[in-house]
């Protein structure tokens, strides 16, 4: 039996990894992957906490969020295509309009 604490640690590690990916990479696609990692870490947290309290609510919320994230990925990918068409690049910094 794995204790809940390890699960929390794992989810926190995954979340920070997702943030790292999201921040370090300039590529729009890789940033989306970072987002996914973050969402998945949240899901792991929900499930493990539900398991901790012997409650089915955690798994229900998991199903909700996984559908919502699927929808989100769809929207994000469509944005990616548009972005690539306009700029011919996936570099996010080209979006910035603030003059240094």
């Amino acid at each position, binding site marked *: 039996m794995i204790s809940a604490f390890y699960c929390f640690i794992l989810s926190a590690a995954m979340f920070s990894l997702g*943030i790292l990916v*999201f*921040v*370090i990479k300039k590529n729009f696609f890789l940033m989306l992957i970072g987002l996914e990692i973050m969402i998945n870490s949240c899901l792991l947290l929900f499930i493990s906490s539900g398991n901790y309290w012997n409650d089915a609510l955690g798994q229900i919320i998991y199903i909700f969020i996984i559908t919502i994230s699927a929808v989100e990925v769809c929207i994000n990918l469509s944005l990616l295509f548009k972005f690539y068409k306009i700029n011919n690049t996936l570099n*996010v*910094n080209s*979006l*910035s*309009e*603030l*003059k*240094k």
Partner: protein
Amino acid sequence: MSIILGTFLFPILGFFLSIFLKKIFNKKILFFIGFFSLLASFLSSLFSLYFFYKLKKHFFLFNLWNLMSVDKFKFNISFLLDELSLYMLIMITGIGIIIYSFSYWYMYLEEEVTKFFSYINLFISSMSILVLSDNFLLLYFGWESVGICSYLLVSFYNKNCKNVFYSIKSFLISKISDIFFLISILLIYYCFKTFNIIEISKILNLNNGYQNLFFIKLVCIFLLLSAISKSAQFPFHTWLPYAMVGPTTASALIHSATMVTSGVYLISRARDIFIFDNEFFFIISLVGSASIVLGSILAIFNKDIKKILAYSTISQIGYMFLSIGAKAWNEAILYLISHAIFKSLIFISTCCIIANNKNNQNIFKISMSKEDNILAYFSFLIGSLSLMSFPVITLGFYSKGEILFKIFESKNYLFLYIAIIGSIFTTIYTLRLFLNVLSLNKGSISKNLHENFFHDIPLLVLMFFSTFLGFFAIPNLSHFFCQINKKNNFYNYLEVLSSIVTIVTFIFYFLSKKNKLFTKKNFILEKIYTFIIPMFKKDFYINSFYTFLEYLYVFLSKILYKDISKKFISISIFFIKFFNKLFLEFHCGSLKRYIIIFFVVLVFTTTLIMFI
């Protein structure tokens, strides 16, 4: 009685006219504007004296207007006319117009002579305000403006940098008096809740008396200090020799006749406060005697003719202080007026001497003979004789004799001895002065100024008043000061004694000149020369003390220049700059940095919420 307004309104009108019409008219017309305004002020003071005697009052108050009134505090522009202020006024305006007309002859070739004329007008008006005012605040206004006029006139030859520095120095030292005077005025208001001199006298002369003696003492101390430094007495006398770098006529008017005597006038005005606390008369006598001895010794060892006259002024004002210390108010004012007459006579004849010797002022290098300028020659002679109180024929003899007698009556024999010693010293330096300057052989000096009406009349008038005839013109204020004059036989003895002293000194001086008694060859006197004479020549190191104070001030200012509070202020500035840079880093437009900040702040806030 409103003619009294003319005494200060006409000169100030002349001042403004000569300032504003400088570009339009030439020197001559500007001179006559000032001349007629001064003449009008002199005539109005004479008329006001006539009306004053017609009214037959002890004093007369003339209220002009109320400048401000806050609750119980009132500041009136109002004049007090009594015998003291009126005779002072006549002395000031009379000597003012005489010297003004003389300066037309003496300074006509100067470039900015119109400036000089306008300053003299301003000075006369402010001096008459000083003398006439019935409250201490208006008196303070006159006091300050007189000091400013003195500064402007001393720095008249401002082409030379040295003169400007000297004028600043003299102005600053006499500024001490103004500050003390202001403090004393504030203390007076604290004590009596009024500035008016007559009301203060009424409060002091009530039967139950004023209770708070300590504050009266303080008022006396500060009034005395202000009078001492304005009248160039012993501790604060150093400004007067420095003030001699100005034009000689200005020195004649301001630094011998009028402004320096305002300290004596102040003590005579505030005499009720001084009489209430009798301790201070001894101190006044001490200051006067110190000034007599010191000023006359310094005059003996000086070479500069104008500085000798300045030191002699210090010692003669010391006589006035000495007579005030013996409560001889009338004699002090009498000697004030007579001293003003003969000292201004010496000064304006010195003008002629200096003009004939190409502005040289060393008494061993200048000379003047009868053929050069007979009028100036004799006026210098008569003025000098009057200064050393030569028996019978001079004005100074009679007025100084009165003072000696009063000191004898007050039974302070120490001060009587000091006064007699002072008259010996006075005789010595005056003899040294005019025996070196006036030569009997024919002079062959090229003159750049030729005598005219404006040169002759002032000298003649002052010469007339400097002889014994002037003694009848000088008023007797003994009734005004409530003094009792009883002249017993000893008065004559004293007169004889003082004349004997003068004549013996005369003879002794001549003998010593012939036998060369005071030269370095004499063995006994050689040691005295090597030890004491440098001290005499260096002003008894009082001036060095002042320069030491200056250096101390500069040293302290150098220390305090690095402001400690600046560091504390600069810490906050540093913080502001640091945070400014920090927050500018956040606002750079890159998305990642925003995200990082967002998450960092999120974590920070959540931890805060969790632990709080």
